[in-house]
C-alpha cells in the first residue's frame, strides 16, 4: 500500500480502468474519458453507496488520487488546483428521488440529481428547495453539498449546511456512513453532516442527501436599482439592509461582461428579492421604495426567478474566482476598489462581483482582484484537527484533503 503522500506507485490509466472494470463492471466507467487510453484521469460512476465505498477502498489500497466531482460547474472544479487526480468519481448514476413526502416538507435524493430537475418535481407539489449555488440549476445536489457554498438566498433561508438534514457518505476506509436523517430536528450523535457539507470531496463521496423544503412562495419580485459605480449603490444597499424586512435576497452585483442585462448598461445594480404572500411582498417592496426611491426595473414572478438563476449560473462560469466575508458595513471600501480596478481594466476584461449586503459575503472575485482583506491563516491547532479528521475518513490520503489542501 502506498498513499500518495509517500513514494507513490503510479498506476497507468489503463490499469486503473481495468481494476475498476473488474470491481464494478463496464457500466461504472464513464465513456467520455475512458476511450483510447487517454492520459487523463479515469472517470467512474458507482451506482450505489456500497459500490462507491468499495471503489474508494480500492483506490485507498492502491494509492490512487481520487477526486469526487459533481456536474463540474462549481468554481472550484477540477483543474483549478494543480495536481491532477488518477480517478474521478461521480455520483452521476445515483440520481433521482429516493423519498419525498410532501406533507413532511422533507426530501431525500441521490447525490447525482441535478438541481433544476429536482426543482421541476418540487414545483409540481408547490414546494421549493431555496438554494442557489454558483452554477445555478446545473449543479448536482451532491456537488452543492460538497461545496457547501452559500448563495443569494442564504441569509433568508440558510446556507446548504442549514437546510441539510442528512447525507450518505462513502469514505476511503470503504465504509458507508448514513449521517443525520430525514427529520427536521436531529441531534443524535456528533454533527458529521455539517463536517461533510463543504468538505469538497476530502472526506469521501456523497451518495445521497436529504433536505428540508419550503412552500413555494406565492409572490416573487426582484427590484433592481442600476448605477455606474459601486460606491453610491452601496450607500443605497446599506439603507435597504438596515430595514427590518425578511427579504429573500439583497445583493450588489457588478458585471462588465453584459451577462446580466437586467442590471443595465453599466453592469452595476442592487438587487432586492422579496418572496412570500402577495400582500407581504407588496408591503416589503413599498417599504423599500419609500426608503430609497423607485428602482430602475422590477422583475415579476418568473422574471424574478430567471434573474436569480442567471446570476447563479454566471457565478459558476467565472473561474478561478475568490470569495471573502467581511462585516457588511465594510463592503463599501472593497466595492470602490473593485470599481476602480474595473475601470482601469476597461470594461469587458473585468469579471465582476456579487456581494451579499446582509451577510457581507463577497463572491465571484477574480483572481487578480486587489485590496481584498487577508485570509485567516490556518493555525497549527486547526491544521492538526484537519489532519486528524482527514485520517478518520481517508487514512491513506487519497482524497483531496491531503493532495489539494495539504492536511497532513
Amino acid at each position, binding site marked *: 500500500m502506498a498513499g500518495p503522500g509517500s513514494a507513490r506507485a503510479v498506476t497507468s490509466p489503463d490499469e486503473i480502468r481495468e481494476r475498476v472494470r473488474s470491481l464494478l463492471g463496464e457500466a461504472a466507467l464513464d465513456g467520455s474519458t475512458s476511450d483510447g487510453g487517454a492520459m487523463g484521469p479515469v472517470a467512474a460512476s458507482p451506482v450505489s453507496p456500497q459500490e462507491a465505498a468499495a471503489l474508494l477502498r480500492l483506490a485507498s489500497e492502491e494509492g490512487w488520487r481520487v477526486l469526487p466531482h459533481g456536474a463540474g460547474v462549481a468554481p472550484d472544479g477540477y483543474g483549478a488546483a494543480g495536481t491532477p487526480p488518477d480517478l474521478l468519481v461521480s455520483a452521476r448514476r445515483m440520481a433521482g428521488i429516493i423519498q419525498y413526502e410532501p406533507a*413532511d416538507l422533507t426530501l431525500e435524493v441521490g447525490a447525482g440529481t441535478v438541481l433544476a430537475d429536482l426543482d421541476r418535481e418540487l414545483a409540481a407539489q408547490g414546494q421549493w428547495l431555496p438554494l442557489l449555488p454558483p452554477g445555478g440549476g446545473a449543479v448536482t445536489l451532491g456537488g452543492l453539498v460538497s461545496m457547501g457554498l452559500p448563495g443569494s438566498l442564504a441569509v433568508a433561508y440558510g446556507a446548504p449546511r442549514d437546510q441539510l438534514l442528512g447525507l450518505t457518505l462513502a469514505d476511503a476506509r470503504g465504509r458507508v*456512513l448514513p449521517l443525520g*436523517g430525514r427529520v427536521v430536528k436531529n441531534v443524535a450523535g456528533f*454533527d458529521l453532516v*455539517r463536517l461533510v457539507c463543504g468538505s*469538497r470531496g476530502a472526506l469521501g463521496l456523497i451518495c445521497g442527501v436529504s433536505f428540508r423544503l419550503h412552500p413555494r412562495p406565492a409572490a416573487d419580485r426582484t427590484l433592481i436599482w442600476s448605477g455606474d459605480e459601486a460606491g453610491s449603490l452601496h450607500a443605497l444597499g446599506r439603507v435597504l439592509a*438596515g430595514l*427590518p424586512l425578511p427579504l429573500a435576497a439583497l445583493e450588489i452585483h457588478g458585471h462588465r461582461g453584459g451577462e446580466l442585462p437586467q442590471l443595465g448598461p453599466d453592469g452595476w445594480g442592487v438587487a432586492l428579492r422579496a418572496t412570500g404572500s402577495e400582500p407581504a411582498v407588496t408591503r416589503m417592496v413599498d417599504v423599500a421604495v419609500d426608503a430609497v426611491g423607485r428602482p430602475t426595473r422590477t422583475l415579476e414572478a418568473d422574471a424574478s426567478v430567471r434573474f436569480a438563476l442567471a446570476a447563479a449560473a454566471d457565478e459558476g462560469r467565472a473561474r478561478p474566482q475568490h470569495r471573502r466575508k467581511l462585516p457588511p458595513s465594510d463592503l463599501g471600501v472593497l466595492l470602490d476598489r473593485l470599481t476602480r480596478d474595473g475601470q482601469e481594466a476597461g470594461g469587458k476584461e473585468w469579471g465582476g462581483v456579487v456581494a451579499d449586503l446582509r451577510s457581507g459575503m463577497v463572491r465571484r472575485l477574480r483572481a487578480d482582484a486587489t485590496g481584498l482583506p487577508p485570509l485567516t491563516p490556518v493555525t497549527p*491547532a486547526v491544521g492538526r484537527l484537519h489532519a486528524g479528521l482527514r485520517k478518520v475518513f481517508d487514512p491513506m490520503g487519497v482524497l483531496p484533503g491531503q493532495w489539494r489542501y495539504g492536511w497532513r
Partner: protein
Amino acid sequence: MSPAPVPLPDDVLRALQATVGNRAVLSDPDRMLVYESDGLTQYRFPPSAVVLPGTAEEVYRVVRILHQAGLPYVARGAGTGLSGGALALNGAVVVATTRLNRILDLDVENRRARVQPGVINAQLTRATAPHGLYYAPDPSSQSACTLGGNVAENSGGPHCLKYGVTSRYVTALTVVLPDGELVRLPTSDPETGTLDLMGLFVGSEGCFGIVVEMEVELLPKPEGVRTLLALFDSLEAAGAAVSTIIGRGLLPAALEIMDRATIEAVEDSVFAAGIPRDTEAALVVEFDGVEAGLDAEMEEARGVCLGSGAREVRTASTAADRDALWKGRKKAFGAMGRIAPDLLVQDATVPRSRLPEVLARIGEIGRRHRLRVANVFHAGDGNLHPNLLFDRNDPDELARVEKASREIMSVCIDAGGTITGEHGVGLDKRPYLPMVLPPPVLEAMGQVKAVFDPTGQCNPGKVLPDEYLPGGGLTRASA
C-alpha cells in the same frame, strides 16, 4: 445513587486556586451540591471540584492543568440540560462558565453580537431589543440557559420551525480544545481549504472542548406577530389541523401542541392558563413577518382549525394577549413538577405525517406500563416531548419508566425518526444511540471525538457508548 466524591489531588487543587483565585474553586461537598445534577434530575454525580473561571485565559489555563494532571472535566453552563450532558461522571471537575457572562460587543448595523458563553439566552434578546433585534433560537429554558450551553446542545425551541436551530446563528466560535489550546474554529472555506469545524463543534455536547467566546447573528424583530390557540376534542384532530396548515403552504413561526394530561397539570398549577380541563389537545399557531398578509394567514389557519373540529379558537395580536395564549405551553414543564416528583422528558422526532399514529402508540405504551404520560410537542417539526411522570423512590415504577422509554424510542425510530431532536444524547440516551446509528457511524464519531480529545478527559462518558470513546469513556479507569 450518589457515588462517593473523588477528592482532587492537593497539588491540582492548589494550581487551580492559584489560577482563578480561592473563591472561584469549590471543593466543599455542601457547596458543590447544586453541581451534582442538571435538568435530568434522576441522576446525581458529585464532582471532585467546581472551578469558575472569570476569563477566557483562565479557562485555558484551568483546562491545561486538568489535562496535564490526567483528570476528567466537564463544562457546565446553567445546568438546565435535559440529557445529563453536564453531569460530572467519575468525579470529573466541573468547569462552570457562569462568570463569563458579558456581552462583549453589540454591532447593530451588522446585526452581530459577540458574547461570552455564560450569557443567558433571554438576556441577549433583552439587550438587543432596544435596537429592534433579537436572537432567534428560543429553547423553553431561555430565561435560564446559557448561550454556551446552547452551542453545546445545538438548541432549538418553538420558533425553530421557521427560523432554524442554534448552528444557523453562530457565526464565530473561539474554544479551548481539550488539551488547553485556545483556537478560533474555521468554517468551510474553499479559499483556505478549511472544513466547517465550527459546524462540527456546535452540538458536540461539551465533548470537543469549551466555548470561551462566540459571535451570533441577530434578526430584526418581525413587524407583526399573530397567535392563535385552538382547543380540540382529540389529539388526532389537532394533528390533522397541523398537517393541513403545512399542506396549504403556510409557514407559521411556531406550531405547538399540549395534550389533556399537560393541560390538566397546567390548569391545576399556579400557571393556570384558562384552558377547559376537558380539552384533549391545545394547539398554538403563531405567524410572524411583515404586517401585511398576517391577518389573512391567521384567518386561514383559524378556518383550518375549525374545519378540523376545533371547539374554540382564541386569537391574539397584542403582546399581552399573546403571552396569555403561550402561558400554558411555556409553563408546562414547571406545572408537571406539581403532580409527580420526577419527570423523564423524551425528545424524539418523527416525520410530521406520522405524528397521529406515533402519538396513539405512545398512549398505548403508557397505559400498558401503568404510567402517566403527558405530551407537549413542537408539532410543526415532529419533535415530541412525551413526559413520563414517576417517583424515583419507587423502583418498580422507575423500571417501568425505563422500559416505556425504550419502547417509545423504538416506535419513533420505526416511523423514520430519531431519539433526540434538541435535548442531546448526553448520559441519558447514550444506551439508545445504537438503535439509531449503525456501528460504522458510531465508530466514525468515536474517531472524530478522539481527534479533539485523544485522552477522553473532556466530558467523559457522554454521547457515545464507552466502547466507541477514547479511553473507554474513562468509566473504569478513574471510577
